[in-house]
């Protein structure tokens, strides 16, 4: 319980604390196990992301991959898997392997390779978080790495073109979602009533698919047909990530939260008024919402998006 632990990771939008699946997994696990993490989201400053995110810094120890970060937290006695039987622990490993093999390629594809998604949403979002001139280079690099990974792991013969590979990975992803849905059934979390590591990983992978508004969304549509998975994501967001869209853990900064709440209420009132007055204007064709401007009003996440449609 000695020094405070700081987590550097990508920030969030569209109601999520982070857009990056691995960052989201670590944040979710920290919430489930009660670990007091200070979350620093990468914003447009010169503390550029070195290497892979998320990164946990505790005293002098720097740990970078989600599995290692979770191991470290467990050693510090923040263990969300305390009540699991050995067999359930084994199941956790197996399902995480399933997620990484079947769902991750499609997730990477939706974010980084699908041309419309990448150009209109992913690249501007990430570029706005990174300082110039790294913002010109890093999103492209992440996209190339994603393509490389998909092609090397999935793209051998007999699949000879990128479209065939895409078809295969989306088929695998949809099958994986179906399997997860069957496994979850009607229970609240995967192993009963308390969330565990597996819930953190599933949440980390599913929530970006579920919440981020992309132009091309067939995976999201498939996910929306599995109501128990949607309910799972929403439950975790409301129970564990309430009012922490800006990334501060609720342990500290209560005044900041109170200010945020007041600001949210003001923004809500304003947006309601504007909605009432400008009904026709909203229905007419608009440019896609400029997510960059919503960041400065990032109090309410979704609530501010009607406002952004009208701002120049």
């Amino acid at each position, binding site marked *: 319980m000695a020094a405070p632990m700081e987590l550097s990771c990508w920030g969030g939008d569209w109601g999520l604390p982070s857009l990056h699946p691995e960052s989201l997994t670590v944040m979710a696990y920290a919430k489930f196990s009660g670990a007091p993490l200070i979350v620093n989201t990468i914003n447009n400053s010169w503390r550029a992301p070195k290497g892979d995110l998320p990164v946990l810094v505790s005293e002098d120890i720097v740990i970078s991959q989600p599995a290692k970060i979770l191991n470290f937290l467990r050693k510090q006695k923040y263990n969300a898997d305390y009540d699991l039987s*050995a067999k359930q622990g*084994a*199941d956790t*490993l197996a*399902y995480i392997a399933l997620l990484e093999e079947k769902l991750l390629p499609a997730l990477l594809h939706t974010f980084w390779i699908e041309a419309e998604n990448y150009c209109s949403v992913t690249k501007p979002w990430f570029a706005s978080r990174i300082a110039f001139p790294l913002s010109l280079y890093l999103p492209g690099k992440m996209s190339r790495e994603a393509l490389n990974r998909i092609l090397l792991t999935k793209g*051998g013969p*007999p699949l000879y073109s990128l479209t065939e590979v895409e078809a295969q990975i989306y088929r695998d992803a949809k099958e994986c979602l179906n399997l997860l849905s069957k496994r979850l059934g009607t229970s609240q979390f995967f192993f009963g009533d308390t969330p565990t590591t597996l819930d953190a990983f599933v949440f980390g992978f599913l929530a970006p698919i579920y919440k981020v508004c992309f132009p091309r969304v067939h995976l999201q549509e498939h996910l929306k047909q599995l109501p128990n998975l949607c309910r799972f994501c929403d439950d975790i967001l409301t129970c564990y990530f309430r009012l922490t869209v800006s990334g501060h853990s609720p342990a500290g900064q209560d005044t900041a939260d109170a200010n945020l709440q007041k600001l949210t209420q003001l923004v809500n009132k304003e947006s309601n008024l504007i909605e009432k007055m400008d009904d026709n204007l909203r229905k007419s064709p608009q440019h896609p919402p400029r997510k960059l401007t919503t960041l400065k009003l990032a109090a309410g996440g979704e609530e501010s998006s009607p406002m952004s449609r009208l701002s120049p």
Partner: protein
Amino acid sequence: FSLSTAAEPWPENAALYQQLKEEQILLSDNASSLAVQAFLQMCNLPIRVICRANAEYMSPSGKLPFIHVGNQVVSELGPIVQFVKAKGHSLSDGLDEVQKAEMKAYMELVNNMLLTAELYLQWCDDVTVEEITHPRYGSPYPWPLNRILSYQKQWEVRRKMKAIGWAGKTLEQVLEDVDQCCHALSQRLGTQPYFFNKQPTELDALVFGHLFTILTTQLITDELSEKVKNYSNLTAFCRRIEQQYFEGHEKDSSAIAARSSKRSLLR
């Protein structure tokens, strides 16, 4: 797979192709091949094992093993399981949906951890590469082709390792991952005879293929097989499947022959 697949019965001359057993085949390919053989034995489908030096190039996907049944060629365990299912034989029909999900998850775990660890050990650990892999992989070909082919394959595998993030791992970390995977498999197996109680499934075949190969292959050090030997229920599981499905078959007795040939692996 089309309707014609289902219509034809399993022929007598179905063949499984792999690399040369004594001189050429490597740990990971041997494991995959044994897994397919075990699966077909469990389904009671006869198969001959044919060893060819160029088996890798004959395969439709570049991966081994592949089977030649009638006029169709199918490679890798996943598609082979589906192909056999289209012909009406299946080991996992008796499982319910949740169990099927579990089975698929565990098969991915084995592929993700055990197979990748085997590939890492063979192609990224310099000592093993020099002393075992390079000599074996190109052995049917004359110099300089043997060196060129094995360097090409090594470059390919190292690229893949880098893409999935395993390139930065040390050997100890890889062995630890193997240990974690075996621990999970051991916990899941418990005291049951097979992973899904009474009947073997493709998961049992896959796990048997990998674990048996690891246990009986002699590498530079014994660390890998020691990791598996730590779990007595896994070694008992391998022995049980070997006795039930591989002994008493005089044709090729792949498992037994494999065991005796492995002593000559370290050359």
